[in-house]
């Protein structure tokens, strides 16, 4: 692991093999494509990496392998000087403390019968964080995700989707991780709420220096969040680089297609002849299809 990295992922590969498949004698074994195919990247302290791609691209499997929620077939994940792939049992559990995951649907990842405060406290207690039983522990975490301390006694169903996701983030922060992995953490939320959560991750990073791996199929969500982008397709990293560079000048054909498919309101209206001019329809001087970045 290079000096500057908090996490180093090397040649990660995962193939989902069907448990049983009838192979008739004399027939070749069907080739099964890898869900994750030779993925490597480094994550620096305080860095936010965005992993973009469509369904089936392997972005979710990649981060699940990194967190050892799925066992990869090959590759190494170095965290804090240890290769997670060589660990099991209690050493794995304690290493995992440093790497917490936030999922897409906060409602299904929170116990519906457990008060918010208890859910957050439990995450701290389970990893032996000193002072986790102190009410101030929960209050501080709620404050970090900008929820009032009074929410500790509420149940998940009393909260909006965005508030629930804040709770899920507070719970992920409870074991004092170095890395938070967000797997489509804003995909189920309304646009304005997505922006709130994105801003929250940016603030947390700026304030605490935490590193973030943020998986999303929405490039516009990643544009304001990620320092670096990884674009995945069919299990492979097809492009990686500084977010600004990848979005401004994508080198890979797939990245280009992905960017072109995103409906930008301003661009769409201009393409349809409605310019940003003074009057509706005055954009006639902008012939159809003449623009596009």
């Amino acid at each position, binding site marked *: 692991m290079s000096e500057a990295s908090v996490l180093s992922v090397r040649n990660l590969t995962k193939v989902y093999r069907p448990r049983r498949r009838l192979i008739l004698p004399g027939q070749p074994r069907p080739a099964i494509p890898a869900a994750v195919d030779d993925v490597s990247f480094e994550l620096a302290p305080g860095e936010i990496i965005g992993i973009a791609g*469509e*369904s089936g691209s392997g972005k979710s499997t990649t981060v699940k392998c990194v967190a050892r929620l799925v066992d990869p077939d090959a590759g190494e994940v170095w965290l804090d000087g240890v290769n997670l792939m060589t660990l099991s049992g209690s050493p794995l559990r304690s290493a995992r403390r440093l790497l917490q995951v936030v999922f897409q649907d906060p409602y299904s990842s929170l116990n519906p019968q457990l008060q918010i405060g208890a859910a957050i406290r439990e995450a701290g207690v389970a990893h032996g964080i000193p002072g986790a039983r102190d009410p101030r522990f929960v209050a501080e975490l709620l404050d970090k995700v900008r929820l009032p301390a009074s929410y500790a006694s509420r149940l998940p169903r009393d909260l*909006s*989707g*965005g*508030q629930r996701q804040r709770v899920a983030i507070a719970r992920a922060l409870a074991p004092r991780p170095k890395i938070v992995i967000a797997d489509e953490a804003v995909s189920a939320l*309304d*646009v*304005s*709420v*997505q*922006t*709130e959560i*994105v*801003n929250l991750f*940016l*603030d947390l990073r*700026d304030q605490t220096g935490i590193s973030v791996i943020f998986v999303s*199929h*929405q*490039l*516009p*969500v990643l*544009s*304001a969040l990620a320092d670096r982008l990884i674009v995945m397709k069919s299990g492979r990293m097809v492009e990686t680089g500084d*977010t*600004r560079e990848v*979005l*401004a000048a994508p080198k890979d054909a797939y990245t280009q*297609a*992905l*960017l072109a*498919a*995103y*409906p*930008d*309101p*301003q661009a*769409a*209206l201009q393409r*349809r002849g*409605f310019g*940003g001019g003074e009057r*509706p*329809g005055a954009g006639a001087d902008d012939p159809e299809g003449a623009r596009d970045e």
Partner: protein
Amino acid sequence: MNDSQTPDTLLEIDDLRIGFAAKAKDAAATVRGVSLSVRRGRIVGLVGESGSGKSLTCRSIMRLLPEGGHVLSGSVAFEGEDVLGMSRRELLEFRSTRVGMIFQDPFSSLNPTRRIGAQMTEALRASLGISEKDAVQRAVSLLDEVDIPAPSDKLRMYPHELSGGMRQRVMLAIAMGARPRLLIADEPTTALDTTTQAQILRLLRRVRDENGTSILLVSHDFGVIAEMCDEVAVMYDGFVVESGPVEEVYLRPQHPYTRALIASVPTLTVPERGYRRPTIPGPPLGTTAYEGGCPFSPRCPLARPACADVPMTLLPVAPAHVTACPFEGVHA
């Protein structure tokens, strides 16, 4: 919209209120005042956050409100005919031949245990009263119209054998089976990948261009709305707060909520480090009880005492462009 009921008008919703309770008289409104019109051959967008009442409004057009839902007041007219007063028989005919609907999740609207062909021919025979053989032929040509390759093979498949995009094409083919004049598309691309979304949107536009079908397109994504729609209505907490030509509403938004919503749309532009995109402050939709007046006022940067009992009537600001916010100076 105020300048309604031209011969051009296909669908006209006027001050619709919908509530939930065991009995209609006990119901408090959740859709509190929706006025909307769709002209022939137009694509009209319905945009707003979850819980704003978009889907309920759509369902009320089909008279498909969920259990306990009642229309409390207002009217829905289709080609001048009162939809809310239709008999069961009229309603059946209305749903099967004049309006089609597709939903966000095509997997849950298809029967997982039956082949695509059986589901399509059943729907076609019911709505068109044709023979099984004709229905099969029609199903093949419908699948072909929505760009499904090898359509006859697909008829033998089960829904799980198709991708999300393909399933949504099948749903569209079924909805278009009787050549309805109105297609209601409720978040039809929300569950799909971006590149698949682009294909489905192109297809919807072609459906309009080739058949003259009007489309009521529900979306929370202003990108989709700007790409597709001629007009758009913006909903918040059960009210239409603004509506008009899409370019008018997007480029010159009048209601503070519309402005906040547009400002929060993420783009591909990479901002400077330290920049935070604007959000909508205040209590999220659905977390506070409605107490009259403008429901956005608790979150509105321009709120004033008068907002507490503003009537939420849509006032004209430009041709066909209306807003429920009556305050001068707000429309900067």
